[in-house]
């Protein structure tokens, strides 16, 4: 491997890592939104039952 290959691999690994971490955060955000949606459904069902 020449110098530029090592440089490219280092560069690619780093930015892929940062992208991967951002994807992980997006995944956690989606899980949170799904939980909030389920709460909203439960609240709606409870309100309907109360009515």
């Amino acid at each position, binding site marked *: 491997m020449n110098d530029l290959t*090592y440089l490219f691999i280092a560069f690619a690994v*780093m930015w892929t890592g940062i992208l991967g971490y951002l994807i992980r*955060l997006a995944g956690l955000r989606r899980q949170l939104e799904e939980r909030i949606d389920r*709460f909203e459904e439960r609240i709606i069902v409870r309100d309907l039952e109360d009515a």
Partner: protein
Amino acid sequence: MNRKIDIILPAITLLAILAALAGAFLLAPTEKTMGDVQRIFYFHLASAAAAFASFTCVLISSIAFILRRETVWDNIATSAAEVGVLFTTFVLITGPLWARPVWGQWWVWDPRLTTTLILWFLYTGYLVLRQTIPGYRGAMAGAVFAILAYVDVPVVYFSVSLWRGIHPQVLGGGGGLDPGMVPPLLISVIAFLLLSAVLIQERLNLANAMDRVDRIAVALEDVEQ
């Protein structure tokens, strides 16, 4: 979640990253003996600076948690630890990629490399601890562990002068850094510090929101019973 800092900080960070890339690839002079592979240095050292800053944030928030017992400090500590481990991983990957063509080996058990690997294990251990012990007990155990783990940060920094290895001492050691390399290095360090702040901020926002949802879940169950 739509506070000004959540918009302004990522925008400034993006500009700083673009400036850092331009600095490392266009502005910085090519090192005479190592050639282009030396440009890894601008990301390698900046990642180390971001990792150290993140672990300092873990230390401060862990002390604050022990003193104030507020969940937000535990959330800051775990968010910063995650980001610190991410940047330490970059240090441990970019280092060998730079070492192989320059030293002829991927890894040597040099004091700087060994203590950095220990640092990675310590904070990965901290994250495992926080995942395995939930609630207040886990937060308190994590805070104590984080304070003890931080001892390795100055050890990593001073390892080059404490025990003579083959890792060069760039800062404060008369490392013979070309004056043309200083501005791109500074830009890169600032960009990575900003990037770590953005990632910690994003992770913290999520952790705080998760706590709020947990509290709502408990309240909802109380109402339903």
